[in-house]
């Protein structure tokens, strides 16, 4: 039976944080989202325009949560353009979550762009249970780096480290998250790698993890209509990203033929990643 989480809540945007010229965080009050697990997502309704899936961003205020949007097509741009006080609808949080095993002491986080959203919720949780995180934030260039300060606040006093890299070297370490990860796993040992970001990046993270026999978990994205396992638009091999995911582990990912290879468009046709 559909439960509380299926009930549409209409919330007011109470705060807007500009992260980069094309990325904003919208803060709202919603108890269910506040308690979202890392990896879970909301279906965000922009009335009369679109409904799109968005990972649940953490917010420091009790009872509050947020979404961080990259301006892209019709829906995300409409959300990006909302003003303080505007109303949006939510249902969810849906999906499974990143799993942090009791025995883990040190984890590696590889995030690209808004893929950091579910990862920060994980880092925050890891911090609370005294698990050390090494967080790698990647971006093309300096102007596209965001969440640096938020991340530092989360890990403050926890012996964790944050590494920022840019493809063009305009900020932080020069290089991609993937090259940086290669170095990190050679020098240090991690109990698990967690990743979210562009699929080809995640595919590379999977490969490196497999080569180094490190457990890995990735939060994936697919086109979603229902978000609850009915419409089939999010199917990835025999999995439904909305219901079986968004988080899959290395064993599952390694068996998937479509992961890093193809996704389905709005009409359900398969498109290959270039």
């Amino acid at each position, binding site marked *: *039976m*559909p*439960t509380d989480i*299926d*009930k*549409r809540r*209409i919330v007011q945007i109470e705060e807007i944080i500009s992260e980069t010229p094309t990325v904003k965080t919208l803060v709202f009050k919603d108890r269910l989202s506040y308690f979202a697990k890392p990896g879970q997502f909301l*279906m965000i*309704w922009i*009335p*009369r*325009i*679109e*409904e*799109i899936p968005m990972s649940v961003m953490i917010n420091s205020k009790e009872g509050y949560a947020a979404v961080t949007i990259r301006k892209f097509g*019709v*829906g995300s741009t409409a959300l990006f353009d909302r003003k303080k006080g505007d*109303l949006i*609808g939510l*249902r969810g949080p849906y999906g499974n979550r990143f799993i942090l095993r009791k025995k883990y002491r040190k984890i590696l986080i590889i995030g690209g762009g808004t893929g950091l959203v579910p990862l920060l919720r994980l880092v925050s949780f890891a911090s609370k249970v005294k698990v050390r995180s090494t967080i790698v934030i990647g971006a093309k260039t300096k102007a596209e780096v965001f969440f640096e300060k938020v991340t530092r606040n989360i890990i403050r006093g926890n012996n964790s480290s944050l590494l920022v890299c840019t493809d063009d070297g305009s900020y932080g370490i020069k290089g991609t998250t993937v090259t940086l990860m290669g170095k990190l796993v050679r020098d240090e040992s991690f109990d698990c790698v967690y990743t979210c970001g562009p699929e080809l990046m995640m595919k590379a993270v999977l490969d490196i993890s497999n080569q180094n026999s490190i457990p890995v978990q990735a939060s994936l994205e697919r086109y979603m*209509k*229902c*978000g*609850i*396992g*009915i*419409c*089939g*638009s999010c*199917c990835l*091999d*025999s999995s*439904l990203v909305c*219901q*079986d995911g968004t988080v899959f582990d290395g064993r599952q990912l390694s068996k998937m033929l479509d992961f890093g290879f193809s996704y*389905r468009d*709005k*009409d*359900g*046709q*398969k498109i290959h990643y270039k």
Partner: protein
Amino acid sequence: MSIDDKNYNLSVELDKIHLRNPTMLASGILGISQSIFERLYNENIGAVVTKSISVDPMKGYPNPTVIPLGCGSYLNAVGLSNPGLHAFSKELSQNKNIPIIISLVGSSEKEFSKMVKVFDSLNILGYEINLSCPHVSKMGMEVGDDPEAVSKIVSTVRMNTNKPISVKVGVGSVDVVELSRIAIDAGANMITAINTLRAMSIDVETMMPILSNRIGGLSGSAIKPIGIRCVYEISKKLQVPVIGCGGVSSWQDVIEYMIAGASAVQIGSVLGSRGPRIFNKITQDLKKYVEKKRVANISEIIGIAHRY
């Protein structure tokens, strides 16, 4: 599959189709991926019906397209989005043993004959013609509400295939028994009843319709008593297999449909809360039921309610 032997007493016959058990996937639910069909088969499903396929790919309506309403009911207006004839025949091209029924949608006889010509060479059980989608103009219900168009489309499909054909009817402005009769007379072998019912939901806070298409189709628990009634009325009047659909979420619902006259049932919305596992759960429960009731074969209960 050893599952088959164990479930011998759940098997049903739909015209020339033999199913190991009466559960089927309803059209439009998870219905575009061969990998998903295989997973469902491993969950012990009787057969799958694909998403309704049209000649050309259709993007469908923008989101929101699916709304959970609570209490096991849903509203949707996906707008028949589908990958189209060619991409989909490629999708199914490697199918060997999965019992697949292709759902077809279109607005002219030509479109239907074009599709059947391509699909007929695949490893499939047969077709379901969707004449009852309540929220896409010129397709679905608008065709179903025109008895002449129904007759022509069904005859065309009949002329192009020897495989069994089911026609999916709904609660529109032609009586469901009358529409079924027309479909059977035109060559359909069986009837699927029912599709979703035209419905709407408006958000009280913003005062706006929620679905991008404003109007959509109601499915799930809310429509079960209407589906049961339609199956009862159709199976009372027509001597063809009827496939029940609408609000099935448990073995009791399957049995209720079968008692009403259904030879098999389709299951859709409940996947939103129970996932693909529901097929295995229901099949196991049905098995316990026939054993407890000492029914030699589940098909014995089909239409029993007509006695009373």
